[in-house]
């Protein structure tokens, strides 16, 4: 029965709100879709370029260095650059992503999005190739720091960097763990809803 008090009937309120017609033609939509595809490609290309640039830069330093230990460090950092470029190609190159939001139900879509986010949080270290990065940095910096033990000024200069790195580590792990737990909890709730449907 329709309400005599439209202001107190949420369905009336909702449906009678003013709406604006969507004015894009199919040709404009097609153009926009192509434009977005190009933009996404450009974004991916810039990340790949940054990765390759770092790779070449570190490789040049690798070639110019003669001591074995720092060479290993620069080599690892160079690998990190190429790994970053590969990861950018793998994860953000358009067309490599599934055509989102089309086939599954909302429950499946929402769950898969949360799982994707959880996996991202879980594997962010591996995906960013941070092992290469930190190991390379350590191999390059630690011998230099040891050598500079005789010159306290150099050591003092390294303190801000070390403090920042320590703070980053102290924040990174708990934050990552908490985000992962929250996502997992929500995924479990959704999984339960899905199981209820099948039973």
């Amino acid at each position: 029965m329709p309400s005599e008090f439209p202001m107190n009937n949420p369905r009336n309120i909702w449906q009678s709100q003013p709406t604006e017609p969507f004015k894009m033609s199919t040709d404009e939509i097609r153009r926009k879709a192509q434009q977005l595809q190009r933009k996404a490609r450009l974004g991916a290309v810039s990340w790949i370029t940054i990765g390759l640039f770092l790779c070449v830069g570190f490789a040049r330093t690798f070639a110019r260095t003669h001591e074995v230990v720092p060479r290993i460090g620069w080599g690892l950092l160079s690998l990190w650059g190429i790994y970053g470029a590969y990861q950018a190609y793998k994860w953000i190159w358009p067309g490599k992503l599934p055509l989102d939001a089309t086939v599954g139900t909302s429950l499946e879509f929402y769950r898969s999005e949360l799982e994707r986010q959880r996996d991202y949080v879980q594997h962010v270290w591996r995906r960013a190739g941070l092992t290469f990065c930190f190991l390379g940095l350590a191999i390059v910096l630690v011998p230099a720091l040891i050598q500079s033990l005789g010159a306290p000024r150099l050591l003092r200069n390294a303190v801000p960097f070390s403090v920042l790195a320590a703070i980053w580590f102290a924040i990174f792990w708990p934050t990552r763990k908490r985000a992962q737990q929250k996502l997992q909890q929500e995924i479990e709730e959704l999984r339960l809803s899905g199981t209820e449907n099948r039973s």
Partner: protein
Amino acid sequence: MSQDSLYRQAADTYGPSLDRLARAYELDPDARRDLLQEIHLNLWRSFAQFDGRCSLRTWVYRIAHNVATGHVIRQRRIRSRLVSIENLDTMPGNDQGEGAASQAEALERLSMLIQRLKPLDRQIIVSYLEDMDASSIGEITGLSPANIAMKVHRIKNILRRWFGEGGFHAE
């Protein structure tokens, strides 16, 4: 039917509903315009693989809600503050007492309520407000009709509290 004509038909039939749906997910007018555009783009793209296994309406709403859900998920800080229908139903302090003074105020109150919900629950309340029955909502969300019925029952309770006992007819 071609991709373009399917899209045209969907946009003509469900255009106003999609506009309202975008409002349920985004309050900021500029961001809402972007979201609506994203919904239409995905809709157009999706019709390249529409196989008619579900109705046009189910297809359109599924895509629209999924795109909007993606939009909410990207706003991680906002998502962490969202609650479920069950939480909202048991939460004290939602009672607004008497009915709203104007249509605009009532709409603002309703939008505020919707914006507090998690994406899946938001879909259910929006579909309910768009006059859909439990089985249609189930087709879109993937939840069972029993689950939907329970949630709709809670939605009615919440709406009754937010919009006053007298005026709201929950059928």
